[in-house]
């Protein structure tokens, strides 16, 4: 860093919580511009690229995660209000939701069952240990809920947190292409599938496609967290007893 003005800014920011906040906002801003430049390609998902940029900056600068999070927590705090604000687009879709409450309920229960059942069975089939199977079971729920379930059923909560993030990224990248391949064109169906399988990261991607897809994805994310907490502990017991 040869420019003295830039160096001064770096020294000042790195000593305050503003550093974490600034690099988070700058990384997301750059990632979003890159996403737009790629014609909104799901492969350039701004969540993925901004996380990669932040990891690179922390590794290169040697700043610890705790120091970064002193500023990053301001963005983290906004996660709560942003989640509550998902009710607004959902309210705008209320007439459609009233019409579709039964299909939504059926899809939700089936989706949560398939997400947990397929991950446990596939991991078992491929030789995964019981702890890995239990860590994978709640991977489609939002992270705090998934970690709680993982702990209760004998998984590793910190591993589950990582698997939850990777699941969300996978869903956000593959989702729209998959729906195209299987011929699903209804934004309501796409939103429900995205929210059930890929929680918040999938919901962020769904809002990039349309308001309707985002609203139903947000609804599915919230309800599937609730359904996962109810269904998965019982389901994994049942699968273990059966096999």
């Amino acid at each position, binding site marked *: 860093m040869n420019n003295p003005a830039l160096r001064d800014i770096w020294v000042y920011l790195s000593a305050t919580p503003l550093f974490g906040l600034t690099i988070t906002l700058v990384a997301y801003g750059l990632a979003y511009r890159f996403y737009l430049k790629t014609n909104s390609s799901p492969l350039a998902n701004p969540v993925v690229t901004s996380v990669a940029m932040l990891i690179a900056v922390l590794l290169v600068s040697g700043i610890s995660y705790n120091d970064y999070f002193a500023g990053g927590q301001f963005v983290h705090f906004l996660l709560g209000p942003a989640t509550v604000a998902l009710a607004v687009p959902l309210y705008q879709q209320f007439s459609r939701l009233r019409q579709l409450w039964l299909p939504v309920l059926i*899809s939700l229960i089936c989706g949560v069952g398939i997400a947990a059942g397929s991950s446990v069975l596939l991991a078992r089939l491929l030789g995964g240990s019981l702890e890995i199977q239990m860590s994978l079971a709640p991977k489609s729920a939002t992270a705090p809920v998934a970690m709680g379930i993982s702990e209760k059923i004998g998984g590793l909560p910190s591993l589950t947190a990582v698997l939850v993030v990777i699941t969300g990224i996978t869903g956000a990248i593959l989702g729209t292409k998959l729906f195209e391949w*299987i011929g699903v064109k209804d934004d309501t169906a796409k939103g*429900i599938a995205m929210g059930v399988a890929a929680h918040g990261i999938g919901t962020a991607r769904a809002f990039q496609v349309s308001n309707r*897809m985002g609203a139903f994805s947000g609804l599915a994310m919230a309800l599937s967290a609730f359904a996962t907490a109810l269904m998965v502990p019982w389901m994994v017991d049942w699968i273990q007893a059966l096999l």
Partner: protein
Amino acid sequence: MMTHFGRIADEWLPITFALLLSTVITMVATALIMQQTSRWFTKSAPAQGHSDE
């Protein structure tokens, strides 16, 4: 994450495949179930996607 590095290294195959395949299966199945049940339970619902943007 680093605490479980050894376990992840040992069991990368079941972790990777179960996670990827399960996510794909869940999304495809849920979207198809939602699309089909929407057709069954609603007579006037539009089948084609359109946003309210």
